[in-house]
């Protein structure tokens, strides 16, 4: 009883998944063309008796006409060496070719799939035995072996299917094994084990669903390979003489003088049939792969859309005399273009300044737009991102308007970035020193060659890595050291500004403290200005001079560090501070901010924080507050600030 109940549920889920898949696949041109090509052929094969003008299986076909008649209205594709209608043979031949293709591929996929799964999942000795066997099978050339086996056995349709099927599984086994290995090491499999699931359950529920997409793609390609193999065998005269496939048609035409009589049609049409099916399958396979294979996702750092034309904004913030202003961001707004939907307002009207040797903290929860803001400073936004307003003045130059060439001279040389999780972005097969050297030579073409190595040592010394570790590989470095190496790379061209995107997030507290100490020391020694992007107010308090708290793409509060921690005016900042464990009162309950940040494509009408704000009143839900000036260096966007003035 139980099984019937539990069975109905997943079925609906599979339907939903299928619909989701179709929705993406529909947009894939290549795949659709391939699918259409296949549908044509399969329809032809299924409805062959109704489509073909003559039934090639009955003896009547023999009396159709003279041999090698050119294509005409009566015989669309002409006639062959026996006077049979080629079009009819072509239509019926598709049945044989497709049958062999699909059945042989089915055998290959089952064998390859099972072997790959078992080898990948269980590993150890089984994997060794199975994969060595696979390797041996790969080394043996398929076609000669097929020819030998088919020649030795009776060349019947079944034999051909089995031989092709039994020899064509090797690539599938390898592909499935590597995908299984990848899936097996993922955390959710460990979690399933912790729950108490056995191997069978894990394979069925966790491994197979993630191997399936790749298996489907592989299946399509194996079908095309099987059809090609069948054609080859038949063309070599090893096909089933009672089943006329396209390869068989080619064999007869070729062997019985079609070439010498100039009857090109006898070779051309069966050939086209094979090309058509294989091309259709290949296109479909490619389309499926683009849709199903997550590894082919586009990189998120693709060239962004050009900046919209906008009016020039005059600087409205007074320049403070002390310290040279390096970077001045004014009223910057960024939208994400979302086809068919209104644009998502990821960043709206953000302004801040950064002076030499200053450290500003850009704080907010994930999805608040802080990474978008940071990427936009160097125009590294993903392709959907667009700067719609505002300017980024670097030494007086507007980076949103300069040419790409000019921006390239600024990127890395004047402003460089340490990306989030960047320590995992080192190339594992090259030494760290080598990769730092590359950062130098790539960005500074005129850098004297003989001095590069000295500079690498100097940079490593700056970030606290001993010179003798220059020639080590990334895997010999710990997480903290790799992060130091990434900082060394960012320093390669003596930049004036470093943007650090969550540089300490994945690191232990002690390593985090080391990295913070390093960054703080660097700015003091080199006069670096640093933009420190983080979600952790505690980290910011340790080293920043001023803090910009972002919420839902807007500035919630912007002030010097002391003000933020002791006189915060925005309820969001206040709540964030309360969510922080206070070591001086260890038994105090942590307060959390209920709810979640707004989605940037569905922002609330009024203040973006209003739905989660404990102090929200009517006006907050209807009107977005402007950024009020609280003090000389203190700004907050909250209606309460205005009310209290």
């Amino acid at each position, binding site marked *: 009883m139980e099984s019937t*109940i539990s069975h109905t549920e997943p079925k609906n889920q599979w339907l939903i998944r299928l619909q989701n898949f179709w929705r993406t696949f529909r947009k894939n041109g290549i795949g659709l063309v391939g699918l259409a090509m296949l549908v044509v052929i399969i329809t032809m094969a299924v409805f062959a008796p109704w489509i073909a003008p003559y039934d090639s299986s009955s003896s009547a076909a023999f009396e159709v006409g003279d041999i090698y008649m050119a294509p005409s209205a009566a015989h669309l594709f002409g006639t062959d060496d026996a006077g049979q209608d080629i079009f009819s043979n072509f239509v019926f031949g598709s049945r044989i070719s497709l049958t062999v293709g699909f059945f042989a591929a089915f055998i290959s996929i089952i064998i390859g799939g099972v072997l790959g799964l078992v080898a990948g999942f269980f590993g150890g000795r089984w994997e060794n035995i199975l994969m060595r066997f696979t390797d041996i099978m790969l080394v043996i050339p398929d076609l000669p072996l097929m020819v030998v086996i088919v020649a030795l056995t009776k060349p019947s349709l079944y034999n051909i299917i089995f031989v092709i099927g039994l020899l064509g599984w090797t690539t599938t086994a390898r592909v499935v094994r590597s995908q299984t290995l990848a899936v097996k090491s993922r955390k959710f499999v460990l*979690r399933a084990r912790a729950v108490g699931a056995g191997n069978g359950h894990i394979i069925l529920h966790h491994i197979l669903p993630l191997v399936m997409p790749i298996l489907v793609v592989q299946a399509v390609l194996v079908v095309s390979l099987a059809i090609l193999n069948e054609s080859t065998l038949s063309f070599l005269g090893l096909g089933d003489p009672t089943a006329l496939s396209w390869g068989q048609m080619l064999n007869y035409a070729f062997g019985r003088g079609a070439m010498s009589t100039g009857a090109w049609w006898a070779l051309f049409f069966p050939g086209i049939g094979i090309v058509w099916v294989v091309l259709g399958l290949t296109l479909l396979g490619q389309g499926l792969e683009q849709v199903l294979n997550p590894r082919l996702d586009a990189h998120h750092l693709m060239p962004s859309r050009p900046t919209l034309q906008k009016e020039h904004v005059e600087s409205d913030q007074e320049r403070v005399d002390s310290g040279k202003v390096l970077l001045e961001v004014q009223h910057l707004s960024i939208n994400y273009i979302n086809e068919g939907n209104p644009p998502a307002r990821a960043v709206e009207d953000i302004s801040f300044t950064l002076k030499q040797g200053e450290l500003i903290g850009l704080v907010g929860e994930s999805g608040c737009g802080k990474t978008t803001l940071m990427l936009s400073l160097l125009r590294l936004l993903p392709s959907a991102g667009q700067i719609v307003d505002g300017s980024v003045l670097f030494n007086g130059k507007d980076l949103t308007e300069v040419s790409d060439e000019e921006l390239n001279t600024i990127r890395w040389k004047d402003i460089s970035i340490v990306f989030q999780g960047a320590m995992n972005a080192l190339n594992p097969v090259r030494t760290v020193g080598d990769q730092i050297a590359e950062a130098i030579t790539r960005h500074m073409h005129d850098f004297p060659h003989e001095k590069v190595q000295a500079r690498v040592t100097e940079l490593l010394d700056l970030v606290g890595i001993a010179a003798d570790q220059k020639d080590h590989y990334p895997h010999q470095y710990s997480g903290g050291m790799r992060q130091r190496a990434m900082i060394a790379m960012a320093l390669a061209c003596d930049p004036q500004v470093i943007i650090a995107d969550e540089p300490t997030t994945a690191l232990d507290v002690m390593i985090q403290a080391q990295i913070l100490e390093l960054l703080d020391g660097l700015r003091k020694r080199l006069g670096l200005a640093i933009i420190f992007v983080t979600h952790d107010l505690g980290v910011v308090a340790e080293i920043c001079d001023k803090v910009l708290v972002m919420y839902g793409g807007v500035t919630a509060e912007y002030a010097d560090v002391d003000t933020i921690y002791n006189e915060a005016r925005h309820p969001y900042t206040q709540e964030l501070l309360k969510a922080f464990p206070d070591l001086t009162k260890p038994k105090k309950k942590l307060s959390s901010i209920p709810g979640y940040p707004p989605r940037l494509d569905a922002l609330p009408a009024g203040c973006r924080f209003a739905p989660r704000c404990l102090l929200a009143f009517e006006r907050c839900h209807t009107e977005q507050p402007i950024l009020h000036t609280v003090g000389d260096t203190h700004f907050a966007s909250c209606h309460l600030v205005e009310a209290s003035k």
Partner: protein
Amino acid sequence: MSKQQFLEVRGLKKYFDAGRPSLFSRETRLVHAVDDVSFDLRRSEVLALVGESGCGKSTLSLLLMGLEEPTAGTITFEGRDVTHLKDSERKGLRRKIQMIFQDPYESLNPTQTIEEIINEPLLVHGIAKNKKERDERVKKAMEDAGLKPAEVYLSRFPHELSGGQRQRVVIAAALVLEPEILLADEPVSMLDVSIRAEIINLLAELRITRQIAVIFITHDLGSVGFFADRVAVMYLGRIVEIGTVLEVLEKPQHPYTKALLSVIPVPNPRLRHERIILQGETPNPIDVPTGCRFHPRCPVAMAVCKDSDPRSIKLSKTHSAACLLLVK
């Protein structure tokens, strides 16, 4: 059902084979991931295991879950030795000890719906006779984990949820088996600060409403204060200090605990203080330093620390630390 007989860990060790250093050497090298760890856990108690990466805290959690076989030592649960169990025997135990993983983005199967994920443990253990009963248990677990109303989430996929919500799904999938111990391996380190408090508060609530004991594994000594009853600080496969939260946070005795405490970011620039930043990183657990394992990084190391491996010294009924400075 005496208090002492809930979970007892005695002299637990786990050495991994690190292979031979060269093709011609005889000896294989060993990674001393967990090296002689002992502690007790009482019913509905929260014990925080604190240490940097590489200190062996994750290996320890896998040992407790029975996902790794210990090299030596015993684990006793409710008076029964559960150190070496066959898979079939372990299944019943698995229901009682559940685990929450660090990364809620990785620990959920992206192809399963939330309902399938939370329902899965019930299917695996063959609990609940019919769909109605299962649905009720799934719903209860979800609401206890703060996914309210449950119906909204049932048919969604993990990628449609935020990090905090995903971690709640992981917690619900653990709760559905009604465990007695939750092993939480860095459950909040991948989450935003504002969400962290929520998840910690949720765990704190569960130990009261469901009488669940929690082993809270973290690298952040600052996050354990409000929530934990006791704290164990680990370094290189050993517990170097263990005591109640107030003892460890307010009167730390081991230099490593003191250093860890000093680097916790204080969210107030007026309280910027001297930090004891240990240089370098936890040494490689293959070549464990002689004597006290902490001596190469210890700011107050003495000559004797190089040779003598300190034993755990009892400072109070609940507080002990392993440091030669404490030997009188």
